[in-house]
């Protein structure tokens, strides 16, 4: 059966001992880029964002499988090289998720990250990849639903922007399709 735009396919994934986990997969792409599934990398801090992601999972909140999460001790660890590397390796979009401003476990790591993300957005604009593909978000570890909302927001933004100009030609980098992502 052919995929129609807007059709939502539901897959059943078996997990031993845990029963069945549902994953909803939207194969719509967007009007401008049919069939395009964004590859998003999320740099999440251990104390807040990654915790929130974990909570979202525990709460069984659905969010797009397009997001690949990388755990950091603090978003203060991010640097321009890391963010640019994500794009070079095939990401269509990248976001950095840290603690709420003022609540960073390491006091100001998230503020440093904020400045660095702004800087790299400028670089991405300069080079023609587009600063809109990179964003900084703040949330606390209890905000499971917010994590899912951010994942959805970013996925939709990148879906509308289309594939990264670095991915338009042959071959992606190491940010590969995984089995569920399709």
């Amino acid at each position, binding site marked *: 059966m052919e995929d129609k735009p807007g059709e939502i396919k539901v897959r059943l994934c078996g997990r031993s001992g845990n029963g069945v986990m549902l994953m909803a997969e939207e194969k719509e792409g967007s009007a401008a880029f049919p069939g395009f599934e964004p590859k998003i990398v999320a740099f999440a801090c251990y104390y807040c964002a990654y915790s929130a992601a974990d909570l979202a999972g525990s709460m069984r909140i659905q969010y797009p499988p397009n997001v690949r999460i990388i755990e950091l001790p603090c978003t203060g660890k991010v*640097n*321009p*090289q890391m963010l*640019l*590397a994500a*794009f*070079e390796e095939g990401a269509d979009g990248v976001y950095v998720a840290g603690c709420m401003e003022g609540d960073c476990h390491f006091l100001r790591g998230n503020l440093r990250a904020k400045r660095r993300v702004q800087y790299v957005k400028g*670089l991405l604009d*300069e*080079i*023609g*990849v587009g600063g809109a593909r990179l964003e900084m978000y703040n949330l606390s570890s209890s905000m499971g639903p917010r994590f899912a909302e951010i994942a959805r927001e970013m996925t939709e933004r990148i879906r509308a922007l289309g594939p990264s*100009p*670095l991915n*338009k*030609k042959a071959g992606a980098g190491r940010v590969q399709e995984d089995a569920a992502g399709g």
Partner: protein
Amino acid sequence: MIVAERKPMEEILRLVDGAKSILVAGCGGCVTVHMAGGEKEVEVLASLLRMHYKMQDKPVEILTQTVTRQCEPEYVRELAENVAKADVVLSMGCGVGVQFIAEHFPQAWVVPALNTKFAGATLEAGVWAERCGLCGECILYKTGGICPVIRCSKSLLNGPCGGSQNGKCEVNPDIDCAWQLIFDRMKNLGKLELLLEIEPPKDWSKARDGGPRKVIREDVRL
């Protein structure tokens, strides 16, 4: 330290246009300290270049190497292997480094990735300000450690001009009047009488105006 700033990408891309192989050469000296051209900045620039050429579908090889300093023959010579492989050497050192690479590799096409600005110091993380004009005849002992040649917009040597208002310079309200600073400092130190000594017109031939300068130390020559 010598403080420089990266040129806009659009300009850098124009300078390296046509090359099939680019060596991005970093320097471990001043430019590393103020984060303009050290190993990390080389990595960022190399990444941006790779992205650009990938989007253009042009197979351009980007090489990277950072040496301890680009103003020392022993260190610059370490670039030899990569310089030989590259069509253009994009130096992220200050103007001195760019020239030194060119001097030591006369067959290499060397272009600057940075605009060298001034000799200055760190005010706070991320903020650097000009302090020394390299005038060749230092009179800081007379002015409480504040340089009138550089910090005074007019390089006046014997006190403020009539445009000094509320401690600010008439050229730009963001600039402190150097002579106000000098007066306050010397008053604090109790050495105001030193300012009574008239400084004669500066011998600018000792500065850059006398042509490129050289310092020789016979005692350390081999």
